């Protein structure tokens, strides 16, 4: 099984579990679905290929990535992503020069709106990229976030 199929399969497993019955949503099943191969990748292109295979990506203003220009603290950088797109299947957030570029992934359903937010750790100044899968296509938005070393805030 290649990596792409692995991820597809794991995502699919969760989807089946998710829609079949609430009772089956056990942590054990959740655990099995975690896309390890993509998280394990040490470089952005490797992580992207693992997740999307050969599907081409296009920069789009329909993806709104909200991230600070200068992070006050690399330990807690607020990141918000909103997609003005229909049928969004997933949103992924990458931090290019983190030890593992894939920071987090969000698998949406027909109920969810394409709008998520979290707080991330960033080791150094680098590019943050949000990738949104909609109708089988990948739309991205990127922004550099400066991570600085504090003098007294630590």
């Amino acid at each position, binding site marked *: 099984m290649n990596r792409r199929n692995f991820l597809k399969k794991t995502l699919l497993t969760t989807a089946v579990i998710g829609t079949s019955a609430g009772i089956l949503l056990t942590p054990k099943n959740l655990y099995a679905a975690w896309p390890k191969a993509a998280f394990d990748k040490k470089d952005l292109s490797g992580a992207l290929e693992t997740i999307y295979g050969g599907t081409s990506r296009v920069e789009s203003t329909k993806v709104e990535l909200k991230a600070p*220009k200068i992070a*006050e603290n690399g330990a807690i950088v607020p990141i918000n992503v909103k997609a003005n797109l229909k049928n969004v299947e997933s949103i992924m957030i990458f931090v290019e020069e983190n030890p593992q570029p894939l920071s987090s992934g969000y698998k949406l359903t027909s109920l969810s709106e394409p709008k998520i937010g979290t707080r991330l750790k960033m080791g150094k100044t680098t590019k943050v990229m949000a990738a949104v899968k909609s109708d089988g296509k990948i739309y991205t938005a990127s922004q550099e976030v400066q991570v600085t070393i504090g003098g007294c*805030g*630590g």
Partner: protein
Amino acid sequence: MIIGNKIILIFKKFLFLLIVCFFSINIPVYASPEEDLAEIREYFNNSFPNTPFKDYNNGAYAIDAGLREQWESIEDFPPYEINVENGEKLFNTPFKNGNTYSSCFKNEGIGIRQNYPYYDEDKGEIITLELAINNCRKNNGEKPLSYYKGGDMGDISAYMAYTSRGKVFDIEIPNNMDALDAYEQGKKLYFTKKGQLNFSCADCHVWQTGVTLRADITSPAIGHPTHFPAYRTNTGRMVTLHERFAQCLNQIRAKPYRAQSEEYKNLEYYMTFISNGLEANGPSTRK
């Protein structure tokens, strides 16, 4: 004769100087705390004319828009809510003797953060909120809590601060030599250069406020104690004001004092007094 007169005149001048010196040693002529307060407010008002006074309890976020946006995003659902919840539970858990913290405080400990620190005329010492929490424990036969590493002290203090949000600080310095002296000692420490970097608190937080120290924007002197305890995002836990003092001193490579030492209590007394008129807004997230 003329020479004689001159000698007398010089002697008189000398005597006058002696008297002046004598009095200035024994009766120090301080600016009153009220004068200090007016002066420092005016200083910041002139330095940051676009920052409304009531915003100073937000530290560096009061003076930098970029920082503020991120901070507001975190404050929208701040990590310290976990600590406040735990603090409330601890606050309401009875001691072995059946009493709770509420038995030790005015208004059962709710909405009183802005009254600390105060000068206790009976004990003749400055009482900070964290000291009062531990005094309460001692009076009820419990072991004191650590002032460091957040822990239960950070959480209880956070809860008590949380119940006091919006209350205005109005620290009074009673007309008592010991209280005034504590205030003056605190003020003196604030302006004394220390450590290998030879910095005083005032160097960064008064004279250089708003400039960057490496990548950090130094926050204004007024409005520091109002938002404590703080959840510091660099350590991911609560930090009491006195632990923060220690962190500051370590960073200028000076030897910190003990938490609740005279030095820190006096410093807190001074810093809180000059923050009078600001609302209590602790706990808070800070870098």
